[in-house]
């Protein structure tokens, strides 16, 4: 029995309650409050790292209140940790620690509630990763959600936050309720809530209507969380308005948790019944490709840096979904490593953006052009992280690109590489323009200037130096991305792939949870191709990064080269004619919650129809 499983979730919850109970005390001692929150988050990192070390040789199960299953039936709730689930939870805890450290000097006036909500969010993420019970999964999903809505609206004095928080909360809630309907449906058939037990039941009922529909409904909430097109609309709205340290968590892990949830649910409950069908894999591939392209397009057109980074997250989420949808160990390995690499560099990028906002008082790329020259350290970290997002070796992401594309059809690989180049170029363009003053300042028409003036800082503007507590977390995260990338040459791939094989062996999962078996040699449904950092992946990575730099430079010098501009504008208020395609793009991302829900319903109906066709 490993008490750390329970402690990793309950310690942050207890700390949050304690912080609120002693609010008047902590309000007067800000440093103590920060310290308490950072230490709690740090201790969760340690606990999860210990769990990770413990489960390296095989998954472990923890039964709450000691209700162990008898004869294959569970009546209690269990936590089930393997290397992948514990690893993702650790990643989340690391990011929470980093952003708590960052927030120390970031907010002028911060109520105790900020710390409490961050810790509750952390507990929600950890519980979501570790749980082995489908309703418990929903509970942590909702807990994470409620904390996230509140954190998004943390700056209610601004115009933006409420709009973003409302769209986020309503879309996510609908997704969550549909997921709960799916849970009820599968419970109605199997009479079980334990994911292993449900998996055993669905395997006995392959292709049953109930299983297919329950699968899609449970997926609904997770797809919304993972920001897969057409369920992605909330993400940019929420990111644009959430405080930057919160964006770190949203982009770094929350979206990825949605993807993890899809993988977890599929391989623990539905893999046997749906049977790794080619059609299903293709469906996820197409969905991922569409998401990647849409994200990349919006990303490239954006000039609000936080929204730009948010759209890049959507694009990467699509790539990850396709990688998971390969159903092969190598695809999942690629996705897992990509999630680590992406989380680290994306978090570093957001933290750098936060520093820019702190020092210069805006996140508008146009107004910032050349303004960031003084922020040398920030510029360096940003540039490194941006190149990491563009797959430059040895930053972790280059490893994953090759693995996740392995065995994919040629057109998909081309699309994904192009999307990485485009998003990388957009992020690099910002970095080169803001921190190094490269190229021409993007066009400054009156409309854009007015829009830019609407941006207001999260902090009092015009700071003269960057606090160490802000730059160090960003630098450490970028450094970690390099270090983990170097591990790729020392067998990281093989280790993660072993974990991926374990994750995909549904039989082993069921035996471990329900019968306490220890499976020494798990078998994945597909043979494991070797995951190694080859010369080819390094070459691809370098080529992609070079391509991104080239596209970024082309954009920056576009006026001298007489290329058309692509920046986002407001068609509604725009005087001169505007390309039809851009108009349509703007129309989708309307900010009206009614539209988002309509698309969500239509998207689900289409997906449902397709899945039903594929399975039957």
């Amino acid at each position: 029995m490993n008490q750390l499983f329970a402690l990793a979730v309950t310690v942050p919850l207890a700390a949050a309650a304690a912080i609120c109970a002693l609010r008047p005390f902590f309000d007067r001692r800000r440093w103590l409050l920060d310290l308490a929150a950072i230490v709690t988050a740090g201790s969760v990192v340690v606990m999860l790292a210990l769990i990770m070390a413990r489960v390296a040789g095989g998954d472990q199960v923890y039964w709450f209140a000691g209700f162990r299953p008898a004869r294959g039936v569970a009546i209690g709730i269990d936590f089930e940790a393997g290397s992948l689930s514990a690893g993702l939870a650790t990643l989340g805890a690391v990011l929470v620690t980093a952003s708590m450290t960052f927030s120390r000097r970031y907010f002028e006036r911060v109520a105790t509630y900020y710390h409490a909500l961050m810790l509750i969010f952390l507990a929600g993420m950890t519980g979501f990763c570790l749980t082995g019970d489908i309703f418990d999964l929903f509970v942590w999903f909702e807990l994470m959600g409620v904390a996230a809505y509140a954190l998004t609206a943390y700056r209610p004095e601004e115009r933006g936050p409420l709009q973003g928080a409302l769209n986020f909360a309503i879309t996510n809630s609908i997704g969550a309720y549909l997921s709960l309907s799916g849970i009820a449906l599968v419970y109605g058939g199997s009479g079980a809530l334990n994911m292993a037990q449900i998996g055993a039941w669905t395997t006995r009922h392959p292709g049953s209507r109930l299983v297919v529909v329950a699968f899609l409904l449970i997926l609904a909430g997770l797809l919304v969380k993972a920001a897969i097109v057409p369920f992605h609309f909330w993400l940019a709205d929420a990111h644009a308005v959430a405080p930057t340290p919160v964006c770190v968590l949203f982009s770094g892990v929350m979206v990825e948790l949605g993807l993890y949830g899809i993988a977890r649910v599929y391989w623990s409950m539905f893999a046997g019944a749906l049977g790794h069908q080619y059609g299903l894999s293709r469906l996820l591939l197409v969905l991922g490709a569409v998401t990647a392209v849409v994200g990349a397009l919006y990303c490239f057109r954006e000039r609000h840096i936080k929204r730009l980074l948010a759209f890049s997250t959507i694009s990467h989420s699509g790539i990850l979904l396709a990688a998971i949808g390969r159903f092969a160990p190598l695809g999942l390995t690629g996705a897992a490593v990509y999630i680590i690499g992406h989380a680290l560099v994306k978090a570093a990028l957001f933290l750098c953006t936060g520093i820019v906002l702190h020092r210069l008082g805006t996140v508008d790329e146009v107004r910032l052009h050349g303004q960031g020259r003084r922020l040398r350290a920030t510029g360096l970290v940003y540039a490194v992280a941006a190149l990491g997002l563009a797959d430059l070796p040895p930053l972790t992401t280059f490893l994953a690109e090759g693995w996740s594309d392995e065995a994919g059809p040629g057109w998909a690989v081309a699309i994904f590489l192009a999307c990485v180049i485009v998003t990388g170029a957009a992020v690099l363009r910002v970095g080169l323009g803001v921190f190094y003053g490269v190229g021409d300042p993007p066009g400054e028409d009156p409309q854009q200037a007015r829009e830019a003036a609407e941006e207001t800082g999260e902090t009092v503007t015009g700071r003269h130096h960057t606090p160490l507590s802000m730059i160090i977390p960003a630098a450490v995260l970028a450094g970690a991305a390099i270090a983990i990338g170097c591990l790729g040459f020392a067998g990281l791939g093989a280790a993660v792939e072993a974990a991926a094989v374990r994750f995909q062996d549904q039989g082993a999962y069921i035996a471990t949870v329900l019968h306490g078996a220890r499976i020494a040699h798990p078998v994945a449904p597909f043979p494991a191709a070797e995951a190694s950092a080859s010369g080819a992946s390094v070459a691809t990575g370098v080529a992609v990064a070079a391509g991104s730099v080239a596209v970024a430079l082309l954009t920056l010098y576009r006026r001298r080269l007489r290329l058309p501009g692509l920046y986002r504008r407001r068609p509604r208020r725009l005087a001169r004619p505007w390309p039809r395609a851009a108009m349509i793009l703007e129309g989708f991302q309307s900010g009206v919650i009614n539209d988002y829900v309509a698309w969500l319903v239509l998207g689900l109906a289409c997906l449902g129809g397709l899945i039903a066709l594929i399975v039957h």
Partner: protein
Amino acid sequence: MTPAARRLVFLVGAAGLAVFYLFGLSGLPGFGRYPGPYGFIVNRVTVAQTNATGVVSAVNFEYRGFDTVGEEFILFAAAAGMAVVLRHLRGEHEGAPLEEAADRDLPPTSDAVRMVALLFTGPIVLIGWWLASHAQASPSGGFQGGVVIATGFVLLYLSGEFQVFRRLTPADVTAAVEAVGAGGFVGTGLAAVAMSLPYLTNFLPLGTVPGAVSSSGTIALVSFFVGLEVTAAFILVIGELLRQTLLLRGGKS
């Protein structure tokens, strides 16, 4: 999108989704034919295992107690979130004294209403208390009790006694009580861990009489903490909204 286009997109999607959903639902065993085994086993073993006769409470606080931990913190996070979101609004009218505003602008409460409301408050709080403390035997528990008690306090407001409401439930103290309730629940689970039992294990003696208040070990304790948390959380939530409404009236006068 225009409203018409939106409606079209939705109706097409909804029709498809409804067909798909019904397609799945038709795969269920049918209404009234719950197949088990989870519920049947729990029904069979609860009384023997926990001495609680209300199986739903046993599931909530014992078999699936960990869900309830998450659930309490959802409420906790929502109350904290509300305080965060509404905090600036509250600061805006800090100049306008609350009590006066409340007295001046509210329609005068008739004595009859006031008396009836006051008469109801006590019994309602008592009923809530009874519900919260009889989780293991009857259809009740900390949650229902908490909501009822919170509603009882709101009656105080209806009776025009906003000051009484405020004096009885000062925000700081209520928030602290809420945190104690939520923390107490987590702590009860951690106490089991300290005895190197699995988290939330029922470590107290179960008593001898099934269904008695003192029976069922930690179920009663957990229910009490949940009641505390829920009462305080809803008083905070309602108080926050009441304050909003009154602030405005105060601002106008």
